[in-house]
């Protein structure tokens, strides 16, 4: 039976705590009295996931069974989540492959000929062939891609977008035309965190910039407290409005959502998922061997090693049918895996940032993504209240190199070098620069034809952190490249001890400290 999440009170006998530090780790001694939040252990996998998938399709929630929705001569589109999920990429077969194969079998049995697959990229980069083969398997790839039946959503293709009007709040709804004009749109989702899925799958994943800008903006982000709590997330509300509008326009969506357990790292990295005082000799040896060898490994090679990790995630649930009831169940399953009850806020929150976030799979974790992971994602992994109090300090550990992937993140470079050199204020950035970047023809060209994130994407990364920037009294990066950290508007510190001393200038003497021991991911349920 997996143990639930745990809040450790650090005492004199507590061993040093492991902090992720990019493509490496730090062992840090937290002051006595600090709290460490450990995620729940991995939930057990479904015994027969293929059977569970089939059952979900045959017994959907608030929907007719999938086979009864499939008719000869119909136009069927299957959209699925892109390379940003799951993290790290999971071992094959990927859950998307399992689900898509099951849907295709039923479509074939029903005599559906017009089937297309679309990667729901939103404004993310196009996936490579290898990434697609990994996600959906060779069989599906070879059956569809050579015939032009596997496409990647292009949010800048005027010929393949359709405007479905506006919501009651004036939000433009512009979607992938093939998806929106199909007789049935099957969406295959991976729900890694509580903000994934639901109406967001289609309303965001298959939308254009014109549509996305209504909720990917500073106002929405600062009114989402947090993204992980649907009842308090303006991001959620906007997507739900758009999703309901899509349904009202006659777009029929059959939603298939899956949840994964938190078995995030393979056996050789087992120590990353265990609580330090429970490390056995194998864990200690694994930590030592990994740390020592990483110290001698050039950064580029270390990055390649880490990005080759395939997570042993197992499927914990599959639900299909109508979007909203499906997602309600999905969210409950995510919470079951990730919620950790936490009593009260803290003056200082600490976290170690790993090598990966949703936007640098097989790529470089550039400084903007460091900000986004720390302040956009990890800070927002709460329900109720943020782990850190208003005016508190967030300390994160990451090398934060001034380095960018030139193919994946071209607009990030300009954003970092030009925009952040002027201001780090999200509202000013949004007002002054967003449109320039969003409509830049070169970025649009690279997004459409290469493997580049859309020109506006670094803005969204910055907006993700807007709530944290507004809430926090300071951000300190331990072990980060000084000039990068300063460009982000944060303070650099060489050691955790230095960072804690610096934080005391903001929050006062003898602060309360809480460390988020992740990944694996968790959501702090703060009361």
């Amino acid at each position, binding site marked *: 039976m997996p143990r639930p999440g745990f809040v450790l009170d650090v005492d004199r006998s507590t061993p040093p705590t492991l902090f992720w530090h990019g493509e490496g780790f730090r062992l840090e001694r937290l002051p006595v009295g600090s709290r460490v939040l450990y995620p729940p252990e991995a939930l057990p996998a479904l015994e027969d996931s293929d059977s569970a998938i089939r059952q979900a399709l045959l017994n959907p929630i608030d929907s007719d069974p999938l086979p009864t929705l499939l008719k000869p001569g119909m136009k069927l589109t299957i959209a699925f989540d892109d390379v940003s999920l799951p993290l790290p990429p999971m071992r094959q077969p990927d859950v998307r492959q399992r689900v898509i194969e099951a849907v295709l079998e039923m479509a074939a049995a029903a005599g559906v000929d017009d089937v297309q697959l679309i990667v729901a990229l939103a404004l993310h980069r196009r996936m490579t062939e290898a990434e697609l083969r990994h996600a959906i398997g060779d069989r599906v790839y070879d059956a569809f891609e050579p015939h032009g039946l596997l496409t990647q959503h292009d949010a800048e293709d005027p010929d393949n977008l359709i405007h479905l009007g506006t919501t009651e709040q004036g939000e433009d709804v512009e979607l992938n035309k093939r998806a929106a004009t199909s007789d049935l749109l099957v969406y295959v989702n991976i729900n890694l965190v509580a903000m994934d899925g639901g109406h967001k799958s289609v309303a965001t994943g298959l939308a254009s910039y014109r549509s996305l800008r209504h909720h990917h903006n500073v106002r929405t982000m600062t009114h989402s407290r947090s993204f992980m709590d649907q009842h308090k997330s303006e991001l959620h509300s906007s997507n739900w409005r758009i999703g309901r509008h899509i349904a009202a326009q006659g777009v029929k969506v059959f939603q298939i959502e899956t949840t994964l357990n938190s078995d995030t790292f393979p056996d050789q990295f087992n120590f990353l998922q265990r609580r330090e005082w429970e490390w056995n000799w194998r864990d200690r040896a694994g930590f030592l061997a990994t740390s020592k060898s990483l110290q001698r490994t050039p950064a580029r090679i270390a990055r390649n090693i880490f990005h080759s990790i395939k997570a042993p995630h197992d499927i914990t649930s599959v639900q299909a049918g109508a979007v909203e009831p499906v997602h309600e169940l999905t969210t409950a399953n995510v919470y079951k895996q990730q919620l950790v009850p936490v009593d009260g806020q803290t003056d200082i929150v600490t976290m170690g940032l790993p090598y990966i976030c949703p936007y640098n799979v097989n790529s470089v974790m550039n400084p903007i993504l460091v900000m986004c992971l720390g302040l956009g994602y990890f800070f927002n992994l709460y329900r109720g209240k943020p782990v850190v109090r208003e005016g508190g300090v967030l300390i994160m550990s990451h090398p934060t190199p001034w380095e960018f992937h030139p193919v994946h993140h071209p607009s990030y470079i*300009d954003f970092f*070098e*030009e925009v952040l050199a002027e201001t780090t204020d999200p509202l000013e950035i949004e007002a002054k620069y967003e449109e320039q970047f969003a*409509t*830049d*023809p070169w970025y649009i060209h690279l997004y459409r034809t290469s493997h580049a994130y859309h020109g506006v994407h670094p803005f969204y990364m910055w907006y993700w952190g807007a709530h944290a920037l507004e809430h926090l009294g300071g951000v300190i990066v331990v072990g980060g490249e000084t000039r990068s950290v300063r460009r982000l508007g944060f303070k650099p510190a060489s050691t955790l001890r230095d960072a804690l001393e610096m934080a005391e200038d903001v929050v006062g003497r003898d602060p309360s400290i809480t460390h988020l021991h992740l990944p694996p991911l968790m959501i702090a349920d703060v009361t």
Partner: protein
Amino acid sequence: MRALLFERSLPRYAAARVAGGLSPGAGARVGPLSLADVDPPELPGDEWHRVRPRLAGICGSDLATIDGHSSRYFEPIVSFPFVPGHEIVGDLDDGTRVVVRPTLTCVTRGITPVCDWCARGDSNRCERTAFGHLEPGLQTGYCSDTGGGWSTSLVAHASQLHRVPDSLSDEAAVMVEPAACAVHAAAAVAEDTIAVIGAGTLGLCTVAALRYFGAPHLVIVAAKHPEQKALARELGADVIVEPDGLERSIRRATQSLQLRDQLTCGADAVIDCVGNDASLAQSLRVVAPGGTVHLVGMPGSVNVDLTSLWHREVSLRGTYAYTDDDFTKAFELVEARDLGRLVSALYPLHRYRDAIEHAANAGRRGAVKVAFDLRNERGR
């Protein structure tokens, strides 16, 4: 009088070229430049005056000469031995403080009638810089008859003398000549989106002139060093980037596409204040089709692929010195934008090697303009 003398000596010129190639400014240690006691130049005529320099700047063209990098083009329009120094503020015998406008044109050479260019006031285009009653020399500081600023005495024609108002310090006054070059460069630019490559004295003064006398929509400056960046910002640059970030910045500003390194659109005008292979090649990469590259920095011999110039109908325009009017405007610019602050270091003549090395490495050492301070020189 004490003077730094540049003599014709091929072996020493070759040595300077080698040394200067290894370490900028090192040509002063081995080359044809030396500190000497020489006779002061004689007054060539009635309208000539003796000027006792107070400050004399070290210019990029001086450094190129000392390090043996200047073009052979200059050979017919200089005369040896000469005393370098053409950025000069000095005193006349009656104590009047003057800035010397160094161009040696028809009037100074006793040529009548003056050439068409001089007649129009465009004396920087004078056709007679190697003729008349003076030895050849395009400017004071390159002519064996007039002497130059790196000494305690030189001669200048009345037409070259501009009285310095009391409100201008010596430091400000010595900036008038380079500022006049910048005024001239800026006057040739009417475009809206302008890139300035280089943020040494000339680049910074050009930014100041662009903003003071015009209203371009966007001025992007490529600057290497922190002090240069700060000054560029203060003087009116809208965007300041590292030199290797210029393409990216202009691409974004002009919403250009890109073909390898070549922007498909680009800046309407590029002002190259560096003048070497790399800066000219970069200028051609970032200038818009039909745009103009203004060569303000003295280029010398360069090796650049001009295909894009041909294909995109780009104009390459030289910008030398200043007109009579530019020189007058430069006083206004220097005072209004406090360009005297660009003078970062002053050296006595006997420390000329240090001064030249400092000037040759000015940006890296946090300096802009380095000058000789003659005010306390023996024999002045």
